[in-house]
């Protein structure tokens, strides 16, 4: 039994590990190396030690980007999960028990498809769509209506203190559908007798949601939080295509990926890599923290 087992395991692991090393570990190692150099992509890189990181500490754009990630890290998961949970509850449970299973509100099958639509579109396409939605004159979708009603147009993307929120709204709009489906799947696996028992004890919909659904869905929510947190560290496509002046106005919507891309375009490959390394550690810290903070006893059922 014992002999032949190691070759067997190695046989299975060799290919994936090689692929992982070549396509994941090696580029990371390379990025760390390049971040310590001045490199423009033609002649070989020149070693400059930590100069790029010193420059990074003094870079306003970097700190702006980090603070935007901070804001998105809190709001994007919170708002998306709240909305997705609410809708998932309505679509799966809120209709009460019928024929032995919990039902959603009337027409829930139709809504489920509609909510998923944004997920089918590529992010840049969504960003282009929202250029029209947010356009600050009468040909914008929202402002067209506002102006017809006699209000002043709102500069969604051109007011520095509003632009980031407009971008976050797009990200929420885009993500809700997916998490709705994720939570729906989670809710479907909660046994109906728990709900029945709770209902017999006189629990209303609100109690059902907070006392039954939410605790039993905790694992799924935790996963959603990590995913959305990682999405909050990205946001590149939407910011690049949608925002004024790619990260503007006045850098009020810029994100790290945008700064990396910008410096890459300026042929500052070393500095771009240094930003990438910073992003790497930020993401890693976030993932570690989240998994630690949200650790809880899993409820078996």
């Amino acid at each position: 039994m014992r002999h032949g087992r190691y070759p067997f395991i190695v046989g299975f692991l060799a290919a994936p590990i090689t692929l992982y090393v070549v396509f994941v570990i090696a580029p990371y190692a390379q990025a760390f190396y390049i971040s310590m150099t001045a490199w423009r992509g033609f002649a070989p890189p020149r070693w400059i030690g930590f100069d790029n990181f010193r420059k990074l500490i003094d870079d306003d754009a970097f700190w702006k980007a980090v603070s935007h990630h901070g804001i998105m890290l809190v709001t994007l998961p919170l708002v998306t999960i709240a909305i997705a949970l609410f809708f998932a509850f309505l679509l799966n449970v809120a209709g009460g028990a019928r024929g032995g299973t919990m039902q959603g509100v009337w027409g829930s099958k139709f809504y489920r498809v509609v909510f998923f639509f944004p997920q089918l579109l590529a992010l840049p396409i969504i960003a282009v769509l929202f250029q029209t939605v947010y356009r600050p004159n009468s040909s914008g979708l929202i402002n067209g209506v506002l102006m017809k009603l006699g209000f002043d147009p709102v500069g969604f993307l051109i007011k520095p203190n509003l632009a980031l929120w407009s971008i976050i709204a797009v990200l929420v709009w885009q993500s809700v559908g997916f998490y709705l489906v994720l939570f729906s799947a989670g809710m479907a696996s909660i046994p109906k007798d728990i709900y029945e028992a709770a209902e017999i004890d006189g629990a209303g919909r609100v109690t059902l949601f907070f006392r039954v659904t939410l605790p039993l869905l905790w694992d799924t929510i935790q996963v959603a939080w990590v995913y959305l947190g990682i999405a909050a560290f990205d946001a590149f496509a939407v910011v690049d295509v949608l925002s004024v002046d790619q990260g503007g106005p006045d850098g009020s919507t810029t994100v790290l990926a945008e700064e990396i891309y910008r410096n890459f375009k300026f042929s500052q490959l070393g500095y771009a890599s240094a930003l990438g390394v910073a992003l790497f550690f930020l993401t890693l810290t976030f993932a570690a923290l989240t998994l630690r903070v949200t650790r809880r006893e899993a409820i078996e059922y």
Partner: protein
Amino acid sequence: MSVSPEESTIDRRALLRRAAAVGLVTLPGAGLLSACATSGGGDSGDTGGGKKTAANPLGVKEDAPLDVVIFPGGYTDKYATDIHEPLYQTAFPKAKIKHEAVTEIDTTLRPRFASGTDIPDMVNNSGSKEMDFGALVNDGQLADLTPLLDAPSVHDPSKKVRDTLQKGTVDFGSYNGKPYVLFYVSTVWGVWYSGKLFTDRGWSAPSDWNAFLALCEEIKKAGITPFGYAGANAAYYMWNVILTHAAKLGGPEVVKAIDNLEDGAWKHDAIKQAATAWAEVGAKYMDKAYEGLRHTDVQLQQNQYKLAFYPSGDWLENEQKKDTPADFKYQMMPVPVKGKLSAAAVRAGAGEGYFVPAKSKNKAGGMEYLRRMLSMDGAKGFAELIKSPTVMTAGSEGVTFPPGVTSSRAAFKAAGQDTFDLTWDKDYKPLDVEARTQTNALMFGRITPDQFCERVQKKADEVKNDKSIIKFKR
């Protein structure tokens, strides 16, 4: 579940740990990989090899193959395949020309330059994915074009090529005094309006600042937005107007100081005056919504007669061909101010860069190709096909251009010696980004002219002190 003790000797966690160890062991391999991806190398190929004669002043080897890379953007690559390549082929029937149309120049060519293999002989470096000229120059990737500029012109052997070119062309393509890039298309910047709209309303293009403000007031009363540019992606059209204004007030030295990153260049009085003047236009005569619009949106508004004045270069007419009403009649006027330069002065320069790689196998051939582009046949053919004039000024004579380009050519001629150009935005991209940001802030009323000068100057100082950015002296 029953697990035999034997099987459990390797649990999942231990296995993962071992896998990680394998990963570590393999890391030196990663080092090799990175060495490969970031290494330069490759030797420069032989140049020329042919005999230098009157007909072949650069000494092109007759049967040497020529690899030409063209960016097929707004100009397409038809001018190369239909005009310039046949010209070269006629001169050197034995040469085999390889034509490559490349849209993403940087992504496609950078690896070829970095590895030193398969380097083309002539490259049209342009488009949103163009390679950084400064980086190419600094890393020694570009051939010095002096032999080309000193060679006799094809159509008039009594003149050197450099003497047939528009003023400033050689300087614009020079880095620290050495000519590395040929910018081929002649470009004139100004403020554009519709000839039809102005004739219908009885307005005429103003040539001084007060007349301009008065006309803006009148246009505003007529229910049309007097002036506008697109803040979302084309704020550099606007800083271009402000700097042109400043150069006309204080002379071209004002802008040259910016090119050279001189201390306090952005705080020059002329720039402050220009910023103040245009901030007033921004406050009174611009639509606030324009900050969120793209250049195509704003240009469309002008085509719909909702906007009177729009600053741009003379590619505008061609770019808007589809959306322009047939009788719109684009017209260009210089920025309406005078000082050290006349009221007719314009920013005129060259765009669309072409270069010969230093490590090309057929450098003489690449330069000869450029010489053919600058011949009468090459320049005239380009102007007639693309409807854009080239820097070989004589090649645009007698070509019928559409009304907009005709008017910008006339303005260029009227300006005479009072033209200038600037290069800092091409050399120092981070400064361009900051100037765009602050221009929006200025024009849409978030900062004062003083703050504008201060903030852009601060970025200029940062660029100046940043050792990783290559500096060029004009």
